[in-house]
């Protein structure tokens, strides 16, 4: 994660020596005064342009990975992910509605989104996950894992259609919404970090406090109940927390897919199956993953930037197939 931080700040149209950047980052801590050898302008690039972008990447990546891991535990479904469950689409629709109907960001830029946007996104996310859950469970008492994912796909399609309709009716919003939808770390400022931070903290605290309960849920609802838990109550709380994290991430940076599936599964391979380990490590690795992906996004086709959502999808598509192959046993 520290590597990602330094690399994310160093690399870009103006390359800065990593050693100097590390020194300048340490200078941000009170009482540290190191001579980084950077000019005023370079220091400004570090603290005003690149640092907020990297910090936002760390936050959003961590949140998406944490939410993905959490959904996988709650639904006992290796394929669960904020995107496949339709949660991100729900949050996306809500943000689009806020922009198109509420006029937020009309001036062609989204910086300066009101602090309430994540709350609207949260409402959309909850609506979506409820729809997916109800539809996915319709096939049986709790439904099969595959049913849930198919329901998520249906809900996503439905909500995306609503979004497209909204955009068509409000053509003046297309430009800002579209650039936001593709994943928008490029224009990130400290404002966006502040927008996400409170929700990120809340989500992280709630989810991490319940990581042992997720291990108990893994043995089944009956067993969890006979061990003294309220499985359904725990499930609702964690769904809400993960959806809040997803909503905050989506409202700050648009649709960045697959982080919630790539990161928790990689952590599983490295560190085992206990959610007590998976969740905190997903948070860290998710942040590092997205910050590094962002480095790729802005250097791969320099001087233009590839939207970060495109990069994660390029990585995530094949990875998803891999998970699908190993999870076949669970799904049938």
């Amino acid at each position, binding site marked *: 994660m520290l590597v990602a931080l330094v690399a994310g700040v160093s690399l870009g149209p103006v390359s800065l020596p990593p050693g100097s950047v590390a020194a300048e980052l340490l200078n941000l801590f009170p009482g540290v005064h190191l001579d980084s050898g950077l000019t005023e302008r370079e220091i400004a690039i570090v603290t005003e342009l690149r640092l907020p972008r990297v910090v936002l990447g760390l936050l959003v990546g961590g949140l998406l990975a944490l939410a993905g891991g959490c959904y996988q535990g709650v639904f006992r479904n290796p394929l669960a992910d904020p995107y496949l469950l339709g949660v991100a689409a729900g949050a996306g629709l809500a943000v689009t509605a806020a922009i198109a109907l509420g006029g937020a960001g009309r001036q062609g830029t989204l910086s300066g989104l009101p602090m309430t946007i994540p709350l609207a996104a949260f409402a959309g996310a909850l609506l979506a996950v409820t729809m997916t859950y109800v539809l996915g469970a319709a096939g049986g008492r709790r439904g099969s894992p595959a049913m849930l994912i198919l329901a998520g796909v249906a809900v996503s399609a439905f909500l995306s259609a609503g979004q497209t309709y909204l955009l068509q009716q409000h053509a003046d919003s297309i430009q800002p919404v579209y650039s936001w939808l593709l994943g928008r770390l490029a224009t990130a400022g400290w404002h966006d970090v502040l927008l996400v931070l409170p929700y990120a903290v809340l989500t992280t605290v709630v989810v991490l*406090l*319940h990581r*042992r309960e997720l*291990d*108990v849920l*893994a*043995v*089944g609802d*009956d*067993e969890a*109940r*006979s*061990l*003294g*838990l*309220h499985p359904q109550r725990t499930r609702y709380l964690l769904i809400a927390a993960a959806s809040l994290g997803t909503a905050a991430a989506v409202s700050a940076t648009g649709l960045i897919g697959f982080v919630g599936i790539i990161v928790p599964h990689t952590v*599983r391979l490295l560190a*085992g*199956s*206990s959610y*007590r380990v998976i969740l905190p490590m997903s948070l860290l690795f998710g942040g590092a993953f997205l910050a590094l992906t962002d480095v790729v996004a802005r250097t791969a086709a320099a001087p233009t930037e590839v939207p970060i959502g495109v990069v994660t999808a390029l990585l995530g598509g094949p990875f998803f197939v891999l998970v699908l192959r190993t999870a076949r046993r*669970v799904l049938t």
Partner: protein
Amino acid sequence: MIPEPGVPAVEVRGLHVGLGGTPILTGVDLTVAVGEWVTVIGPNGAGKSTLLRAVGGLLPAPGAITLFGTASAALRRRERARVVATVAQSPVVPPGMSVLDYVLLGRTPYIPALGRESTADVDAVHEVLRRLDLAGFHRRELATLSGGERQRVFLARALAQGATLLLLDEPTSALDIGHQQEVLELVDQLRREHGLTVLATMHDLSLAGEYADRMVLLAGGRVVAAGTPPEVLTEHLLATHYRASVRVVPGAHGPLVVPVRPTRP
């Protein structure tokens, strides 16, 4: 929970359970004394598992069930979990989970909400693993164990729960005949050493009769016979309720039930 002398471990009075509008149990009475092993038998669909689930608190049964003198409905979930432990017929085996982590889940009713295991919890689990000859297995992945080993791990989780009432739903159905005996001997040994009370359901009648103090025959949602194994395992009762053609042969530890091909008229 320290039982007062004479108070039964389980007392079920007039239990009615319906699932989705279909009555499953219609007025079941059952008493299990402290330290006793009672096995519920009955044909498929008689309601054996449902009875066990109700006693374990997994199904609402207001007023019908008393555990060690306290109404089950009055117990909080965590309190009940310290009194009753259930081993389901085929428990979920979470992929990748180690034996130690799985058995540690048994300590859940002692861990404060949002807390984590104390060293005392971990010690208790290692003690249980040692007692069940699983000490060398604690790092192994549960999913890689054989059926008999797994069944021992499930038992270990239930024992780690520290409950004195053990509910076993078909504890031997997935095992070969040697492992069936091994698991039942183990349960019986634990019962004698730790004063556990066992309420089980079983399909293998000979095996059930050899280990149970008393048996309850359930058919059509009610108790049709109850008593010692020789009282319940009779050719007449089994013919009536299982529609089975059997010979019952006296054995050293209980009647042996041998299926005999019906003679054509």
